[in-house]
Each structure stands twice: as C-alpha cells, then as structure tokens.
C-alpha cells in the first residue's frame, strides 16, 4: 500500500512529527494516522510512561481529588 506524508507536516510546530495517511481516503470511513517507528524511550522510561513510543505518550494532567473534567 502506497503512503504519502501528510501535507501539513511542513508547516507544523516543531513538536509535531510527520504522520502518514492512506492515499485513498473515502467518505464514511474513519482513519487514524500511521507513525513510523524512529525513536524509543529506554526500557525504564517506557515502563513508567506506559509506552515505548514518545509520540504516543499522552499523560493525564488533571489527576488528584479536585481535578476537573475538561468537558464541564
């Protein structure tokens, strides 16, 4: 399957990394961008983070009693 780099990558802020989208995007279908493996956390970091992939690391900030839901 041929893939191309998403066009917005060139204008993206430095912390964004190029993502791949399928060439043929069709209506009424959902797509999640692919990311090719480049860098990895160390094993110790990975176990703490919950993933080996730094760009999939999305820790939750509003922990603790009194943390607020972003929806309300």
């Amino acid at each position, binding site marked *: 399957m041929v893939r191309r780099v998403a066009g917005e990558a060139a204008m993206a802020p430095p912390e964004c990394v190029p993502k791949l989208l*399928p060439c043929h995007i069709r209506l009424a279908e*959902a797509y*999640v961008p692919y990311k090719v493996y480049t860098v990895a956390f160390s094993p110790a970091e990975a176990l*703490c983070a919950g993933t080996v992939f730094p760009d999939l690391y*999305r820790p*939750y900030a509003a922990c603790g009693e009194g943390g607020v839901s972003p929806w309300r």
Partner: protein
Amino acid sequence: MWVYEKKLEIPVRVSIPDVRMAARLITQYGGPDGELSAAMRYLTQRYTMPTGMTRGLLTDIGTEELAHLEIIATMVYKLLDGATIEQIKAAGLDLQYAVRDKAVFFQSPTGEPWTAAYIQSLGDPIADVHEDMAAEQKARAVYEQLMRLTDDADLIQGLQFLREREVVHFQRFGEALDNLQEFVERKKVY
C-alpha cells in the same frame, strides 16, 4: 492456548489502604468499560476477523488486557489489605462485605454483575474494530475519572500506565481499521 507468567506487567503500589477507592476501582475489573470486558471482547472477536493482522492484534491486545485485569485486582487487594470492619462500615461497604468479605469480584461498584451485554462481536470486522476503538476511549475516560478521585500518587502512577495503554491500543486498532478497509476495498475489484 494461554500460559501464565507469575509476575505483574508493572509493579503495583498503593500508599495507604482506601476501602472506598477499592470499591470505585472495581468498575475496571467487572464493570462495563473495564479490563474483563476488553479482554473478552477482543478474544472473542478475533475468530471472525479476515486478516492475520487483525487476528494477531486482537489476540495480543486481548491477552494484555488479562494482564491489566490482574493489575486492577492487585490494586483492589492492596487497597483493602488490613482494612478493619470499622473502616469498611465507614466507607459504606458493609453490605458488600456481608456478601463476600474482601473478595475481588466481577461486578460494578454498585453491585451489578458483569454481563456479556457489555460487549459485542458482530462478525462484521469493520463494526467490530469500531467497537474496539470506542471501548479504548471509554476505558481511557474511566481511568481519568478514577484519577480525579484519589490523591494517592502511587496508585495514580499505576492508573496512568493503564490509561496510556488505552491510548496506544486505540492507535493500533485505528491502524488495523485501515488494513481492514483496504482489504474490503480490494475485494470489490473484480
């Protein structure tokens, strides 16, 4: 065939016993969006998946969810460890205690037993993978809700891990969805 490894996927710690938090955490053991639901959903959907990628991914994520089920059970077990009858009564959990002491069980925090009605295996791979992606988002949301209910830094560390796994699983299911959508599209070309 399943084989068990006599170790947890991660070290699980709690700072102090907390009966009420144990009762809340049970939702990720036997509740609608918990690890049992996830494991059973993926391990039963895999039989009717058409590609090696989706069969492999559902087998592997389903197996990892069983390991997460064990983590939740360990958290509950440690949160209840050493709790006195007075603490159990004070947390409003004496009715639960009357039924099954401190045993871990497949139910929601309000006592509804786990049911296969929480999951689905339609046999339509596209529908099934969308269900899986939704399940990962629901589990992520529940972990966030649970993290807002405690100040125990050790427990939060474990819940952060479990929440992050939902984020990663969602990404992988999304990639598998693309594989399935291309598979279906290719089958239309005669």
